[in-house]
């Protein structure tokens, strides 16, 4: 089951890997272990979720012939047109992600700040030249939460605890997390206590820089005069600090307008 350390390499997003029939590519990334096997007539995907106390920082992949124990669930797919290339494409979360700072942050009246948050991404296993998607695997098992005025009105979100770092260098860069700069502007005459914030991850596209890090466009949230509404704006461009980036995945949902107004209580706790 264990793979040779000599063959172990760093995994890369969006790069086609060629497999020979009978070979298995093994990935250890985020909180999962993934095996992709190519057979003469089919693809096989096995994955298992690890219960880890700490976040792993690296992504390793190995090509070999070893398979995991039979207890690891197996998915089988018909192999078409003798395609032998497999590509791993990242995708943002399919629900908004609630960012909850370990320590609440207060934004004074008329103040603004930018916090950097890292949200876990999903891995799409795509095969062939047309990159047909076979499976989509979350790289960290997200817990769910509810954001809304009451248990009747609101929406289901993923939950992510965060240090809400305000210094970009302090944000850990991991190949399975996308960094989003969130600018919060408090235009009210009262301080704003940021206990939690719902980041609309399905509206964000994913970009990869030269160091293999994933970035999304920045999000600006402007809290207006009253508590009932806040406006949200997804930036067109990436942060300059991200460096030269290439797009790797579109947003899951299209933003109808450049400026999105949502109920205040759906955005903040």
């Amino acid at each position, binding site marked *: 089951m264990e793979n040779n350390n000599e063959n172990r390499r760093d995994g890369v997003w969006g790069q086609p890997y060629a497999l020979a029939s009978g070979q298995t590519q093994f990935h250890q990334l985020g909180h999962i272990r993934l095996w992709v096997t190519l057979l003469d007539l089919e693809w096989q995907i096995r994955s298992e979720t690890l219960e880890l106390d700490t976040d792993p920082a690296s992504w390793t992949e190995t090509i070999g012939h070893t398979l995991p124990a039979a207890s690891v669930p197996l998915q089988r797919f018909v192999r078409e047109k003798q395609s032998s290339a497999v590509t791993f494409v990242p995708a943002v979360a399919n629900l908004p992600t*609630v960012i909850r700072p370990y320590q609440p942050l207060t934004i004074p009246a008329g103040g603004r700040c930018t916090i950097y948050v890292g949200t876990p991404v999903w891995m799409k296993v795509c095969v062939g030249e047309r990159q047909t998607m076979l499976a989509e695997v979350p790289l960290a*098992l*997200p*817990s*769910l*939460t*509810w*954001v809304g005025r009451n*248990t*009747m009105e*609101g*929406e*289901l979100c993923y*939950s992510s605890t965060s240090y809400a770092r305000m210094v970009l260098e302090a944000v850990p860069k991991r190949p399975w997390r996308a960094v989003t700069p969130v600018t919060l502007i408090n235009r009210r005459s009262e301080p704003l206590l940021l206990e939690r914030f719902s980041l609309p991850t399905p509206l964000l596209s994913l970009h990869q820089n030269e160091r293999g890090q994933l970035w999304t466009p920045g999000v600006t949230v402007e809290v207006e005069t009253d508590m009932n509404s806040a406006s949200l704006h997804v930036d067109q461009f990436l942060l300059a600090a991200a460096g030269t980036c290439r797009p790797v995945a579109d947003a899951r949902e299209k933003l109808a307008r450049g400026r999105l107004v949502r109920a205040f209580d759906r955005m903040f*706790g």
Partner: protein
Amino acid sequence: MKVFTDIAWGQWLSSGFLLVLGLFLGSLAGRSVSRFMAGRSSRHHTVMVRRLVFYVIVVLFSIASLREAGFSLDVVLGAAGILTVAIGFASQTSASNMISGLFLLVEKPFEIGDFIEVDATLGEVIGIDMLSVKLRTADNLFVRIPNETLIKTRVINRSRFPIRRLDLMLGIAYAEDVERVEALLLELAEKDPSCLEEPKPFTLVTAFGPSSVDVQFSFWVPKERVLEGRSGMMVAIKKALDHAEIEIPFPHTSVYAGSHSEPFRVQLLGPGTNTEKDLLDANKDS
């Protein structure tokens, strides 16, 4: 023979043709609308619009068919009025169900695809029709409930809101530390991916029962994960309590066979059952 030759066969044939054409076109249009709306709207709305399109087309073609057959619409409507009064008394139930059906459509207490509970029947709504609502129960039974019953009785819609709270009741032995059990339960909720972080899970001590301290453990799950949430959590609770050596007691029953007979001798078999705590009084005395 003259009777047959006097009948305007051509007129009747074209009338019948119009009727059949109406049914065919109505069905075709209904299906097309259904296909168009399938990915764009809910199942409930799709079915409602499909039916509306079908009935409108069929009614239009029926009117045309009647006119073609030589009936005046005024006469037909007049006859229908008289018929309504005449058969109204005989069809009270049907009329009541039809009117109730209209109220159900307007009030919309449930939609097609919702899980509802009517009296003691729980099932998925698979059809809301003119006279009745059809349910498919969890054990795959078809249940037809008259619309009138649904208007009169209490209906619980289990799918209306996106999240549900599950309340699990468990008893723990009097000797155990209740606060430790509560902390353990909340830790389980934190680990379970089906369990929502907000609204927060909580525990309540509800009663000092005959053989146990009764604790209510409440947590929220998405409506799609109710079954796995409940079952998964109960398994996790059992495992966690066993692991922490916390006893879940069961009611103890003493069987008395009369003053002149010897007491029954009860012996517990199996590993782990012969501890001091588990020995019965009868065993101690012997």
